[in-house]
């Protein structure tokens, strides 16, 4: 049975995975309407190992993969829709229930059921787009702006330009919040490379922003013929609640 923690296989496969949907409470309004409130955000997995005993090493393997961190990627095969499903789950420490000896003399443990509730992460991965449609005829700061609606951190940056332009030089950009430049090495759209992708960009060590910050796309250089066009820069951000 397919089951992975952080993409890693355990030394013993589970024998059953039960998906317990979140509970709900039903209320009736004075007008006779029913209101159903769902409890929690996700399902709970009951992952059962070893009807005939759990390998001693499984306990160690589980706790090693848990690494004293509760929330992990849990991947399993949903028997109903026959596909691999990924969730974030809170993995409890594995502890033995009872132990004894097999006929061979090997130490073994009773079966083990891990109860893994699905959790909602306190952060949201989102891709913010700074899009400049049309021709970049001039350089300048703040060509495109957006207001951060939550505090966050930039994890990565990519970009694409529809038209690289012509002449000497290239389109070179910076990302800032007006005070902090987020790229220690600015992003280039190099005519000679012909990929139309942003290249060379390096993020600073703590590219953080706060709610209300205005994040700007600065165009610091353009090609000699001032004809590069249709630029998008994408910020891969974690937003925090």
């Amino acid at each position: 049975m397919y089951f992975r923690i952080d993409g890693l296989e355990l030394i013993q496969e589970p024998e059953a995975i039960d998906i317990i949907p979140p509970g709900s409470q039903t209320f009736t309004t004075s007008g006779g309407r029913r209101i159903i409130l769902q409890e929690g955000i996700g399902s709970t997995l009951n992952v059962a190992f070893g009807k005939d005993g759990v390998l001693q090493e499984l306990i160690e393997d589980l706790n090693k993969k848990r690494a004293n961190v509760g929330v992990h990627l849990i991947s399993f095969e949903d028997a109903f829709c026959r596909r691999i499903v990924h969730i974030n789950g809170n993995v409890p420490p594995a502890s033995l229930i009872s132990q004894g000896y097999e006929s061979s003399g090997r130490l073994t443990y009773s079966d083990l059921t891990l109860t893994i509730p699905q959790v909602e992460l306190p952060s949201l991965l989102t891709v913010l787009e700074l899009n400049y449609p049309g021709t970049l005829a001039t350089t300048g700061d703040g060509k495109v702006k957006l207001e951060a609606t939550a505090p966050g951190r930039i994890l990565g940056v990519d970009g694409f330009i529809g038209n690289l332009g012509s002449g000497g030089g290239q389109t070179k950009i910076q990302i800032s919040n007006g005070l902090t430049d987020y790229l220690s090495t600015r992003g280039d759209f190099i005519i000679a490379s012909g990929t139309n992708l942003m290249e060379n960009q390096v993020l600073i060590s703590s590219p953080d922003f706060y709610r209300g910050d205005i994040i700007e796309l600065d165009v610091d250089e353009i090609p000699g013929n001032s004809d590069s066009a249709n630029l998008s820069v994408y910020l891969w951000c974690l937003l925090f609640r």
Partner: protein
Amino acid sequence: MAIVQYYISEVPFRLPGAITVADNKWKREMQFRGEILGYRGFIKTLGTGGGTSTDIQLRNQTTTPDKDYFSTKPTFEVDSASNLLEGGELIASPTFQAGDVLVLDVDAISTGPADAEVTLLCGFFREIVP
């Protein structure tokens, strides 16, 4: 040992201006490994021509050979007049690695289509070293 967390997010692609048949119309560099869960699209100008459509393919140009993600291409259909990306089917394992470049190809057009967006819904695996 790195732990992994799973995030779902959208990845937009653009087809600005007049749309022509060509590969590499828009590109994105994936910052994490992940999988494509779904897609949607909107075209501002459908173009004309009964029975014609603007057909989209999404391709991973980093893999060898390139990997097409649609086993059946989704289309902007002139006849339906919805202006939405319709139909299409993803391959069985539409996955990518961090650093892979995904490109949008236009394989067929109606007469005079313009200004479209295609957005992927992706699951991303983010590795964290505690």
